[in-house]
């Protein structure tokens, strides 16, 4: 009897294991980060009654994102009773894996993420005009939509952006005798030398050439030397003489001891920490730096007198070129899941609801980002004076060429070039090799 009981128990265990495995397989998105939104399981294949299901995967930008989407979902579902919207918020660490796994069995209808070209290259997306109403489509900054064009078609729409500028420690510059905030590379180098002479324990200039975001450094210097990743026709020009000059200038600053010690290993966050601690005089950073530094001070209970006095200015340039800010933009895209006409209408409704001016500016302000629509920009600028100059900057900044299929390789390639150059490599040769590899 005991044996039979034991046997039954073992069988039950084995079966439950199989059952667990089965229930896990179709929904690999179950991760602890996905949070409360998972109470309603997205399942596109089974419409809930006569409601139209829309499932969305959204990136988790910060601590407020989940709550914001949960409220949005409730409000939307209450307003449109014929639609059942389910939003899953997934952390940046997992989102690519989650999406790639879901593509095989149960692709989301709408995805909020940074890149789109890889999905487009696999013919998985719908053109933006198919799923966004004309009224909403007209709200976006033209320059933003241009970033999502492949073969003359816009495939994704911007949800928010961030922009970069040069932050400087006002007190250090003053004490070191730097009267004017540097606007050119020559002035920047002169200012760095003055700061170094004033106090050798302070790093004058911050550079991040790490795997994390080394491509940003590449962009800051080449854009502000009047060059780019590609020419006007979209061909890669990575080894352009101006690009070589730009990277040599940046690496030169490191070799002259005017920067943080280890640019290949010190990420943007390390630099922001050094800047906040008053050990770094100047650094290029995103519009979220004030929030970041204030949060750190609050966490560490930093007394007022130890907090730094800082401001921001345009990124210094070379050769009389206008200063260019680097923009980073995230997107919404719609997967081509053979949607019915009704469903397309429901998706249009979703975007109209999302981009409604007040709701949209609320979304942008929620995590301190910048808007991608002009109306949103006006509201944001009016509601927060500190954001106003940024709204101007974001309207005119440059973006990485993420619409090009080779971007992932270019990104890692330029980081590798920078790091090799830091180790003493010849920038011209390195960029020639990279250009040959990318452009074939």
């Amino acid at each position, binding site marked *: 009897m005991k*044996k*039979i009981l034991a*046997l039954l128990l*073992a*069988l039950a*265990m*084995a079966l439950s*294991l*199989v059952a667990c*495995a089965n229930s896990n397989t179709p929904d690999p998105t179950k991760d602890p980060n996905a949070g409360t939104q998972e109470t309603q399981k997205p399942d596109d294949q089974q419409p809930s009654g006569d409601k139209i299901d829309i499932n969305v995967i959204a990136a988790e930008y910060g601590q407020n994102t989940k709550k914001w989407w949960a409220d949005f979902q409730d409000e939307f579902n209450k307003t449109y009773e014929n639609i059942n919207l389910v939003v899953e918020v997934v952390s940046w660490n997992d989102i*690519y*894996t989650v*999406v*790639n*796994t879901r*593509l*095989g069995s149960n692709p989301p209808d709408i995805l909020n993420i940074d890149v789109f070209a*890889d*999905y487009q*290259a*696999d013919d*998985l997306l719908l053109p933006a005009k198919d799923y966004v109403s004309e009224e909403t489509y007209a709200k976006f900054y033209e320059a933003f939509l241009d970033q999502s064009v492949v073969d003359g078609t816009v495939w994704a729409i911007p949800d928010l952006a961030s922009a970069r500028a040069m932050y400087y420690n006002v007190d250090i510059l003053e004490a070191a005798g730097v009267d004017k905030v540097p606007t050119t590379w020559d002035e920047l180098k002169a200012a760095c030398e003055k700061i170094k002479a004033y106090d050798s*324990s302070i790093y004058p200039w911050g550079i991040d*050439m*790490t*795997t*994390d975001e080394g491509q940003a450094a590449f962009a800051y210097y080449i854009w502000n030397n009047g060059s780019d990743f590609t020419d006007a026709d979209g061909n890669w020009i990575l080894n352009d003489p101006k690009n070589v000059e730009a990277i040599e200038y940046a690496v030169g600053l490191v070799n002259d001891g005017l920067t943080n*010690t*280890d640019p*290949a*290993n010190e990420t943007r966050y390390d630099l922001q920490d*050094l800047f906040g601690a008053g*050990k770094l005089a100047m650094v290029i950073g995103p519009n979220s730096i004030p929030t970041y530094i204030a949060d750190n001070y609050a966490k560490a209970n930093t007394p007022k007198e130890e907090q730094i006095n800082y401001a921001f200015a345009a990124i210094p340039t070379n050769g009389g070129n206008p200063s260019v800010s680097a923009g980073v933009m995230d997107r919404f895209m719609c997967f081509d899941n053979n949607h019915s006409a009704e469903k397309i209408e429901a998706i249009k409704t979703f975007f109209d609801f999302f981009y409604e001016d007040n709701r949209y500016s609320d979304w942008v302000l929620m995590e301190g980002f910048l808007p991608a629509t002009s109306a949103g920009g006006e509201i944001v600028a009016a509601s927060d004076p500190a954001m106003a100059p940024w709204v101007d900057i974001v309207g005119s900044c440059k973006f990485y060429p993420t619409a090009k*299929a080779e971007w*992932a*390789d270019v*990104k*890692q390639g330029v980081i*590798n070039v920078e*790091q*090799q150059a*830091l*180790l003493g490599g010849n920038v011209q040769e390195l960029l020639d090799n990279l250009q040959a590899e990318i452009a074939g």
Partner: protein
Amino acid sequence: MSKATAPKAVSTTKKDPYSGKRVLRKVEPYIWIAPSVILMAIFILIPIISVFRMALNNVSKTGQLKGFNNFANFTKILKTPAFAMVLKNTLVWTIVVVVLSTVLGFMLALVLNNKFRGRKIARAIVVFPWATTLVIQASAWGFIINKDYGTLNTLLMKLRIISEPVNWTPTPEAYFGWEIACGIFVTIPFVTFCVLSGLQSIDGSYYEAATVDGATYWQKLFKITLPLVKSSLTVSTVLNIIYVFNSFPIIWTMTKGDPANRTDTLVTYLYKLAFYNGRQGEAAAVSVIGFLILLICASVYMIYTLRKGDGDL
């Protein structure tokens, strides 16, 4: 096997009242091991098969398989200049960490096997590095050696040994050295406890007999202790080769393989290939190459140490 025996047993059910039990006895072991077999199939076999499949296929950046590509992933990887360096790093990393941690762990086990006051506390302290997550360990090491706010510089400056902060990681090689040191530090406890368990099972009378015969300490160490803990050492070394070779957190936390692949091992390299470059097919190929290297190393080592028969294990 269960398939072949089951029908035979069923056909005799009506005739023999005890045959039910017999069937049970035959099937029972398979039921007991079923959960672990299912678990292994789900979490080991299926991923292995899918990695091999990816390595042989053209994989798009969104992870879709686009058909067999005639080993292009492998040829592309082998032609990449960084790959040779990464392979060399991996071998240096594995050999140095495994050899040094085995030697040091063995010595520590000999010390801890002696009876002394506070032995229990000493043993507990040895477990600490093992019981802490590797990411935390690596972050702590990174924090200690940091030039700007590191505790090592602060300590040395307080002791007035140095007057200004020293950059402990001026070159990629220095960084790699620190990573290896961290690797050794976290691996020692495992070796120590494996050896310690072997040491405790050695009968004291061997040593008494050797002492009576006038054997020196070294003779006892090499003629009695080492042969008798060989099986424990084999287990710990083989497992360590596998763990260290595949170790990801230390290098990823401290340098991410930067600068320019100088501190990359196969595992961090393939992670970057897959999740930063979106080249999942090539990453899978690197994974397969690593798997084969490990298979060869571990088999050679096991055959070499255990060729005298199963008796030792």
